[in-house]
């Protein structure tokens, strides 16, 4: 296993820049997820790490070695494709053993390694079946088997659960993470599904338009989104934004939104007057008749233990996650109380998050 270091990686297809100066480090044994909407450059980045695309600029280091211009077969990595790419003309055993055959390994040893791998993935009973008859989850396991059988430096996975049914998907998310915990393989996993990313990743890079918007643990990304895009992309329902104007002075602890004073984490930088947005996660909203921030109930979505309540405010609809027990009827006027310590502030123009005490705490915690 090895660490993956990506430096100023760039890829352009003609005039279109797919990946812009990406930098990140996947530490040895880490489960790293690249998350973003389709066309954001995450798959291109993965393919460059694999050696299936050559970068326009930048470097890729695998275990300290520069592999940027090396051929895929010389990199000692394994790749799991979205469509699995199981060879239909071979049975399960041959599919899993295929990478070992390339190394010229003796057939007895291949047999042993394939069986060992199949046991690990609990597919040893399928070894002599044809791959075309397998169910989605089993195909996925065979594809994984083909990846781990060689014990490569790292695993690259391109939306491997994308084509599975929801039922299998949840199962495989669990299995993948469990497998990772057992073999501690450095893994780069590409997905557009935030639930997969949040539940499996040690670290996440959120990408948009070829740029890494934020790099951090799932918790950091959820609690302290670096940009409005990240805040909007992560979370279901996503973060609410309420606009407010004017600049911010260093040390400010309060802002005015729709005529109501809202306490926020202490601002740690001066911000010139501009259009701003206050970011609130749905679960950080409570109903409080004393609050001056008001709205009318628009609709509710019952989820069992909680409910998502859409509230129409002067600045559009915002969604709150509140206990399911509260009874609300459409049109009802409510006051909204926000959890001050958990609010984010954004510059609307750039989408950048303003430095506040909340973000600094995280940085301090990381460096300390």
């Amino acid at each position: 296993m090895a660490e993956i270091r990506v430096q100023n990686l760039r890829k352009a297809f003609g005039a279109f820049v797919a990946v812009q100066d990406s930098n990140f480090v996947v530490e040895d044994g880490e489960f790293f997820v690249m998350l973003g909407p389709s066309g954001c450059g995450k798959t291109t980045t993965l393919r460059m790490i694999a050696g299936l695309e050559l970068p326009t600029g930048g470097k890729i280091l695998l275990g300290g070695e520069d592999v940027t211009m090396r051929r895929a077969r010389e990199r000692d990595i394994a790749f799991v494709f979205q469509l699995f790419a199981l060879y239909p003309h071979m049975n399960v055993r041959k599919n899993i053993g295929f990478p070992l055959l390339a190394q010229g390994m003796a057939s007895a040893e291949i047999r042993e390694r394939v069986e060992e791998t199949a046991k690990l993935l609990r597919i040893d009973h399928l070894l002599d079946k044809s791959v075309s008859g397998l169910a989605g989850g089993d195909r996925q396991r065979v594809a994984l088997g083909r990846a781990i059988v060689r014990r490569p430096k790292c695993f690259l996975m391109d939306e491997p659960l994308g084509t599975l049914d929801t039922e299998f998907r949840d199962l495989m998310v669990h299995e993948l993470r469990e497998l990772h915990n057992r073999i501690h393989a450095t893994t780069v996993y590409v997905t557009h599904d935030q639930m997969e990313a949040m539940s499996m990743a040690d670290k996440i890079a959120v990408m948009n338009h070829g740029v890494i918007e934020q790099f951090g643990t799932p918790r950091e990304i959820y609690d302290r989104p670096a940009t409005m895009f990240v805040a909007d992309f992560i979370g279901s329902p996503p973060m609410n934004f309420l606009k407010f104007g004017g600049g911010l002075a260093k040390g400010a602890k309060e802002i005015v939104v729709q005529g109501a004073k809202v306490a926020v984490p202490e601002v740690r930088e001066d911000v010139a007057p501009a259009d701003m947005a206050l970011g609130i996660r749905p679960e950080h909203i409570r109903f409080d008749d004393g609050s001056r921030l008001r709205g009318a109930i628009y609709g509710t979505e019952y989820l069992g233990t909680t409910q998502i309540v859409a509230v129409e405010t002067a600045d559009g609809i915002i969604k709150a996650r509140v206990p399911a027990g509260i009874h609300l009827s459409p049109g009802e006027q409510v006051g909204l109380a926000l959890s001050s310590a958990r609010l984010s502030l954004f510059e609307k123009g750039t989408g950048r998050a303003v430095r506040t005490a909340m973000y600094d705490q995280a940085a301090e915690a990381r460096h300390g």
Partner: protein
Amino acid sequence: MSLTTAHSVVAPSSNAKLIAGTIIIAYALISIVPLLWIFATSFKTPPDSIAYPPKIVFQPSIEGYCNLFTTRTRQTPEYINSLGPATGFCDETVRKRNMVIAGPSNFLPRFVNSLIIAFGSTFCAVFLGTLSAYGFSRFKVPLADDLLFFILSTRFMPPIAVAIPIYLMYRELGLSDTALGMILLYTAVNVSLAVWLLKGFIDEIPREYEEAAMIDGYTRLQAFWRTVLPQATTGIAATAIFCLIFAWNEYAFAALLTSGTAQTAPPFIPTIIGEGGQDWPAVAAGTTIFLVPILVFTILLRKQLLRGITFGAVRK
């Protein structure tokens, strides 16, 4: 049909099936009758073959096959009587007509020429076609669309339209009446078909297969050989049949460019007619034997052919 039985809107009705079946059987009969007639004629004696009204029931004879494979000379009965006893059935049959076998005919070498040229050119066309199609399918080829159009444009006119320039070129190059020349010619005609057909097949094979193999330690050529080729067999088989049928049946170029050593069976068979009267059984025997290789090849690959023809109509 009772109200309780659900009936499919897409399944054909029994009337439609009946009509379709009748048409298919009629078409099959129309197609097969000439072939059966040729086959029957090959087992007739020369007088039976030109009998009027035509004989449907007759005493089978292999005289046609004897005549096909031999050359004969007419001799006086005295001379024939002076010979020893006939050595075989053919010998005996021929002597009854006051002839003796002078030697083997050219049919066998011509037939072998046909085999070499047709299978050789089919192999070349499919080989080149597979590689080109793979290249067009997987790599960024500069001007790929224009090149593909150019390749297709070689089929815009019947190949025979360029017969005279090719005749002159071949004469200059010393390719006239050589198997190599004919293989090159048929390959050139077929390769455009092969590229287009195979490109369609290879486009349908996800490139992830090769990418997976290349990541797993194989070179591109190995990946192509081990993952693309096995999955392209259907397309390759279908393409091979089309190429073989053309090369096997081609008459015009063969008649123009071959006369001796490299002559193929199609221009040779009609020449049988001229040798010693209109020997229809021998012609029919030649035609029957000529049909065998393509029949065997098509039967062997018929599954692929069927899948090849309907390919792309329904996604797997």
